[in-house]
């Protein structure tokens, strides 16, 4: 859980150093991250779907964004606040069902679906957080796992009439965006190359929005307080801060992000599987977030890309892909706590040093 502070240096002498210093200052600004996210959503699909190396496809790109949103929220809880929940599938699946049911029984406008999903997840998170956060560390992990499994079995059994039980919920009815823009509508010309279709704009839009919100939260007092709690909870208490409330807020925020993601997933898949509440899903988000690199905004994105790529594309070649991912996961926990993104930034630092280093 390392903080990514890099001080803005502006030495007068070397050109490179000066340039890098200005680059650093630029990077510190919030708008940079948001701009980066926009550039990403424009550039990534081009690379991913067109380069034969990747063999990607648009639907997978949208799925990556959805999981990224889930993971960014999860990272606020794990990477920043240091709380490991093994039951986050509750918010993902629960909100997915809420969105699906809402679309089937009321109105399937996508933004409304996401709203319903987010509210559902937030309320669930508030309740479960109130119950689970009384205890720390191990108990928290087990309690969240227990609540997750409880919901799973509830959806499978007693509530099967509503949820569709083992078969999942198939009644999802997605309407045009804002009532008028069909999700399949494609753009023409250059807009088409950059933004593809309305569906893509929806997912990419929420992705950028999530990044913006996450960056803002991290740069608010909460960012510092969360990290402090992760490092030395006791001390934070004795500085007069109500640790329990901050933890609860972290939990609810991460639930809200999961809610957005769950709602979007229902729109994407037009279906809600009961497995979305299963512990495997909770485990998946843990792996994605840790693999990508906790304690950063783009780490979870990297993790989503890696995981979903392996799960959907590599799995065609290698059936034991999860074994590979599992091994990578253990290596990261053991040796490379900063994850994939940590390795990337590590390379970046080395490159910087080379550029700046006159005496190496």
């Amino acid at each position: 859980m390392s903080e990514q502070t890099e001080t803005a240096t502006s030495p007068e002498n070397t050109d490179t150093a000066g340039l890098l210093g200005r680059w650093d200052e630029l990077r510190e600004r919030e708008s940079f991250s948001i701009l980066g996210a926009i550039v990403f959503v424009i550039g990534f699909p081009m690379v991913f779907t067109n380069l034969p190396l990747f063999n990607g496809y648009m639907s997978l790109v949208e799925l990556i964004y959805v999981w990224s949103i889930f993971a960014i929220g999860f990272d606020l809880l794990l990477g920043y606040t240091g709380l490991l929940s093994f039951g986050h599938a509750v918010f993902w699946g629960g909100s997915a069902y809420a969105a699906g049911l809402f679309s089937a029984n009321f109105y399937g406008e996508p933004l409304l679906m996401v709203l319903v999903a987010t509210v559902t997840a937030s309320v669930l998170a508030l309740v479960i957080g109130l119950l689970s956060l009384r205890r720390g560390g191990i108990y928290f992990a087990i309690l969240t796992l227990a609540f997750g499994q409880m919901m799973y079995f509830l959806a499978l059994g007693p509530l099967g009439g509503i949820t569709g039980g083992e078969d999942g919920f198939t009644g999802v009815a997605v309407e045009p965006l804002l009532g008028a823009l069909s999700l399949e509508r494609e753009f023409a010309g250059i807009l088409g190359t950059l933004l593809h279709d309305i569906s893509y704009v929806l997912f990419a839009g929420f992705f950028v929005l999530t990044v913006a919100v996450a960056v803002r939260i991290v740069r608010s007092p909460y960012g510092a307080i969360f990290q402090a709690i992760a490092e030395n909870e006791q001390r934070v208490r004795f500085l007069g801060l109500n640790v329990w409330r901050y933890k609860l807020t972290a939990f609810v925020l991460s639930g809200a992000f999961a809610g957005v993601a769950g709602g979007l997933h229902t729109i994407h898949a037009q279906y809600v599987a009961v497995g979305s509440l299963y512990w495997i899903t909770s485990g998946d988000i843990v792996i994605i977030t840790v693999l990508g690199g906790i304690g950063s905004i783009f780490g979870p994105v990297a993790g989503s890309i890696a995981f979903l790529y392996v799960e959907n594309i590599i799995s065609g070649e290698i059936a034991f892909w999860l074994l590979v991912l599992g091994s990578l996961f253990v290596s990261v926990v053991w040796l490379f706590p900063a994850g994939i993104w940590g390795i990337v930034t590590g390379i970046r630092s080395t490159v910087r040093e080379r550029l700046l280093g006159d005496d190496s």
Partner: protein
Amino acid sequence: MLLKTSGLTKQFGELTAVDGVDLELKEGESMSIIGPNGAGKSTTVNLITGLLNPTDGTVEYRGEEITGKEPHEIVQKGLSKSFQTASIFPDLTVERNAVVASLGAEHGSFSLNFFKRLAGYDEVAGRARQTLEDMGLYEQRDIKAKSLPYGDKRRLEMALALAGDPDLLFLDEPTAGMSPDETDDTVDLIQRIKEERGVTIVLIEHDMEIIFRVSDRIAVLNRGAKIADGTPDEIRGDPGVQEAYLGGVEI
């Protein structure tokens, strides 16, 4: 009366760790709590600062009952504690350490401001800067706290404890494991805090020299109960205290 405890008791099953301790502390009157190991000194402080709930008895701060309140509530009222080990935030920069402390001081125990820029809170930055400058740590503000030399870590820890301008400060064995030079510096620091900032100090210590230099009053605990309470001279001559310290050690 700044702090008052009445019949403060804590039992862990059959073990009575703190047994009906009565303490009274006036503002500006610094006290040391001494006693052999296991006498219940730390436990008593933990009871006062809200880390533990007493089995019986009350704690009052400025006439208001604070028994069993949460630590953060008690701190917000003007108490603070400096820990035995340098309890800081190792992976954050020195400045961020101070910022967190300042947040607690400026914004109360909780605020739903996760959408406001931290950089926009001038009063927080100002207080953080002041806190660091007071301890001579402002130069190192961009270093990660874990990279500080041990002595600086302790000063940072003290700085954090003082960031909120407390009226009452608990110091739990601040000179444990220190060299004579470091001990002198710490004592000077404590004196400075007393005089310049008007903080009332409650000290748990074993080093008698420090105790006599810093304290206006001394409370002696043994086996959870208070066996003596008075000025340093009174305590020095008290035979019961001498006996408690394993057969009349010369103090």
